[in-house]
């Protein structure tokens, strides 16, 4: 085992989702599509700027709740 500490599964999954969403941004198929004059890449970035902060706070709250249920070790 070469990690100091295994990243919690939920954190790992959340990072994979973020990386996946980021990768989707740069796929070629929607670069030419425009909605209200803005390319879909632009709208996807707008979505990410809303989704990422919201989901990060929800993820943080869930992690804290889980820790609390684990005996309030903190």
């Amino acid at each position, binding site marked *: 085992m070469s990690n100091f500490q295994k990243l919690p599964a939920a954190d790992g999954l959340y990072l994979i989702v973020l990386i996946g969403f980021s990768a989707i941004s740069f796929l070629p198929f929607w670069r030419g599509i425009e909605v209200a004059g803005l390319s879909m890449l632009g709208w996807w970035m707008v979505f990410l*700027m809303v989704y990422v902060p919201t989901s990060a706070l929800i993820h943080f709250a869930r992690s804290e709740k889980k820790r609390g249920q684990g005996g309030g070790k903190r």
Partner: protein
Amino acid sequence: MTIERVLTVLYLIGCIAVGLIASRKVSRSSDEYWVAGRKIGPVVNSMAIMAALASGGSIIGVMGLAYATGIPATLALFTGASIGFPIAALLVAGPLRKFGKFTITDFMVYRYPHAIVRYLVPILIVVSFTAYIIAQMKVAGITANALLGIPYDTALTLATLVFITYVSLGGMLAITWTDVFQGTLMLFVVIGAALLLMFRIGSPMTIMEQATAVAPELGRMGTDQGITSYLGSFVIWASAISVIPHIVMRVFTAKDSRSAKLSLNLSMVFYAVLILAAVLAITPVGKMNFPELQDADTVFLRVIETEFHPFFRGIAVAAVLAAVMSTTDALLLACSSAIAHDLLGNYIEKRLSHKTGHWITVGVAWAVGLVAMSMAYDPPALVTEFYTIAIGLLSAGLFVPVIAGLWWKKANLAGGIASLLGGVTTYAIVQYTPSVFPAGSAILMAIPASTLLMWIGGTFAPSESATMIAEITELHRTEEA
């Protein structure tokens, strides 16, 4: 312009007063000066992080960049920063806060104890942050010039003297107090301006449709920029948040690791709202009303100048100066710490009194600020583009060694040094040979090169001592417990 000038002067006097009050507390210890005694709560810290990151670049520069290169390119850059926050919260905030020192260099030198790391990391910080500071100073100069009618050079000099004064006197505590106020002011002005424009014209979709009917290039991917340029700026900021010193120092100011993580997550919410308001409402209106601006960075100032009441203009000048100062003060403190703490810290601690050491620190802040100011008299064209390249250098050198140093047991001295040097060298070579490599590709090559070198070093060179491994493991264990 009387109202604008009075409001601006009041604001500047307030900043100096904060520095003077904070100086009484912080001159007592290094802990107080560099990391505000590690007592900052998550709400205050998140506003301070947002204010530190949301620079003049984020108010003036984001709109200038969107005006000149289009909204998709701009959002690619700033969405990278937004994704960088959860990466930092999950991977570095907890263990680094537990590490409990002052700077990112402290961690690098502890994890990879070698002269190359000890000297190269602070030098990289000073070089890239000086570029960052110069960009902020340009914003201060053009703002005061456009909205207060003060000549660029005079405005630049005055603004610089004010923020060097309160940073050098008050350290991190003064920065935290002023950042909270400055962050609030920035949000008020940018969101307020966006809402007023939306009230007059319509929803962001309507504004976008009208603006792109006049200037279709605003919503399109730029023809002279390849996808590597978008991806490059995205990756620079996604990786930078975990390692850029003025954000990492904020992690060290948090009460505990939970507070550090929450601060990062909350600050991202404020930051995203600010950027979206600027890009989706204010920039399109600026593009419609002023399609032929010589200096794209002045678009927000033109909108404010023509669309709003003098009182709001005065508040806006203060807000832009707040954005500049809240970032520049943090950058200045980080630069100052790179020299006074990282490079000269041992000498100062061993041979000089605490008081003398404190005044050397103050002197370093002045020296860095004045050097940057002298360079800002001849400013760069697009500020955000300019400092993003400088931040890329830091990400290229520090991201892999820091993440591997915290999470990979095999990360060792050889891997750390090779990764640092390889990342920086690759970035510099690719960035400065634009005829060979596409724009934006430097970071896309530097991070894989840095990762590969870390892997080679970690796999084939001697592993770290059992003590080091136990100590890093402890950072995670304590974090978990």
